[in-house]
């Protein structure tokens, strides 16, 4: 399959004004203009196939949004190439943007003081969506996103979750081939997040829409994305499956065992005790050195076990370790 998005050696550098500090700094700042260069995106390469659902991760200021802005044509790259579905996004703006949908989570594309439906109707005219398609899409989205309760309410009176659902609907009415989502679940509660995730998954699987989403929320990624890209300080650190990342950098797994009686020194080869709480003992072990089944076998041959549980390291924890210890560099 041909790739729908190809990014080669993508750079985006910003000049940021440098301010002097200390005495007379006010004068200095007034009369001099010194800049230093920030490499927001620095030599990034990737390709995305049609129909993929990609998670684009990175800490704050890593260059996620800048990449997304370049992919949607809102920013011109300093260097490198972007090709999306045969277009160079920053050129041929009008033709290009009618093929994509984008939601920047912090902002709304809807008219603030008008009922949601009015904005949808306006989008129908802006994208020249055929009446039939518009109705079909809207009916489907209304049901899946449960828009009916607030479709006639002005956007300003919506809750954050409602507004986000309305915005996602707005981005998809014209059947875009590619959907860009910048922090689609930011600030939402668990239920609202889940609803939006299910919807994104539905769009991706049912319609084959290619989806790229940036997020801080790793549970988004865990539930949705088969492939992730990790960026930090403008550089692409990882491109691959989430599971592989976990296996490689996941750190230690845990085995929590409830015994029938208290075994204060229930030591076992290949695992360390990290916590003893009555009859419950928590062990930690390396995934490479011993399999969970072996460990359980060894334990059950020596002690009477009531219940046990193997805990994978939290993906959150894994990614944090990657950022902090710069494991990928």
């Amino acid at each position, binding site marked *: 399959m041909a790739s729908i998005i190809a990014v080669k050696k993508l750079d985006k550098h910003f000049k940021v004004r440098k301010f002097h500090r200390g005495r007379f700094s006010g004068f200095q700042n007034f009369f001099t203009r010194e800049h230093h260069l920030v490499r927001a995106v620095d030599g990034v390469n990737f390709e995305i196939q049609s129909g993929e659902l990609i998670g684009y991760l990175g800490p704050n200021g890593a260059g996620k949004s800048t990449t997304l802005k370049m992919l949607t044509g809102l920013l011109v790259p300093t260097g490198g190439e972007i090709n999306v579905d045969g277009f160079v996004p920053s050129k041929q703006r009008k033709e290009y943007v009618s093929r994509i949908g984008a939601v920047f989570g912090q902002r709304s594309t809807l008219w603030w*003081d*008008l009922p949601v439906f009015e904005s949808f109707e306006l989008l129908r005219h802006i994208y020249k969506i055929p009446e039939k398609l518009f109705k079909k899409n809207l009916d489907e989205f209304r049901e899946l996103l449960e828009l009916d309760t607030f479709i006639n309410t002005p956007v300003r009176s919506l809750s954050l979750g409602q507004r986000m659902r309305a915005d996602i609907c707005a981005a998809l009415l014209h059947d875009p081939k590619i959907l860009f989502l910048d922090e689609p679940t930011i600030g939402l509660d668990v239920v609202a997040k889940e609803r939006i995730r299910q919807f994104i998954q539905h769009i991706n699987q049912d319609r084959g829409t290619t989806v790229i989403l940036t997020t801080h929320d790793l549970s988004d990624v865990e539930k949705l994305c088969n492939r992730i890209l990790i960026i930090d300080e403008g550089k692409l650190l990882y491109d691959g499956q989430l599971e592989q990342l976990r296996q490689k950098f996941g750190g230690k797994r845990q085995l929590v065992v409830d015994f029938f009686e208290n075994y204060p020194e229930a030591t076992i080869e290949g695992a360390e005790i990290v916590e003893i709480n009555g009859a419950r003992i928590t062990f930690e072990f390396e995934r490479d050195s011993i399999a969970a089944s072996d460990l359980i076998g060894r334990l059950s041959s020596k002690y009477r076990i009531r219940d046990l549980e193997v805990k994978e390291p939290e993906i959150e924890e894994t990614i944090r370790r990657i950022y902090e210890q710069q494991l990928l560099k």
Partner: protein
Amino acid sequence: MRLFIEIAMRAFRLQMSYRAAAIAGLLTNFFFGILRAVVLIALYDGREEMLGLSLQAAITYTAITQAVIGYLSAFSWYDVANTVYSGEIGSDLLKPINFYSYWMARDFGRAMAALLTRGLPIMVAYEIFIDISFPNFLLNWGLLILTVLLSWVVSFSWRFIVNLPSFWIPNAFGIGRFFFMAALFFSGFLMPLRFFPDWVVKLAYLTPFPHTVNTVVEIYLGVLSPVEIWLAFAWQVGWIVALILVGQWILKLGLRRLVILGG
């Protein structure tokens, strides 16, 4: 064209939804209108006519100028600059629309709503409380509607331009304020231009501003000869073409800067 109407319709509805603001605006415009009429009456001091303008015409003049404040956003209009600063412009640029016509349509809807909720009631109230004159022939009504429309286009096209510095500088409102002040003066809003010395009038006509309020007033009052009327239209159209071209050109530079430097 269809899209233009659809956008304008929504902007119209949007404006109509601000009922409290419309009422407050209306009352303010009417109050100051009365104040200005009283000042003019004092100025005329019993005389029937001054510089070719009868007292009734002068009072009518205050009615018209007060009526178009909302329509022409005479005091301030920073809608475009605000979207640049809020970043909302990003979502507008992600839509397959011409940014310039998009704003023109929005402002047209807004202007029409203002004309309806503020312009008309003021004229009616003036007619009820103080006697004002009306154009006397059907033709004059036609000319009036035409010049009122053209005055909005002139007004929009310069207001759009003074919003554009927002692409370059972090606070474009100062520049805007300067032009809005100049416009109040040179458009004949504060005083009919013909009350000013010649050189001020000449200076004023170097700017597009007289082709908004002053032209409307003069055509309404019927003080122009037929030739002068057509000349007034020609000037309006000329300024519109020039300002729209300049506006689009600066916009292009601004957008280029925006996509290169980031918001």
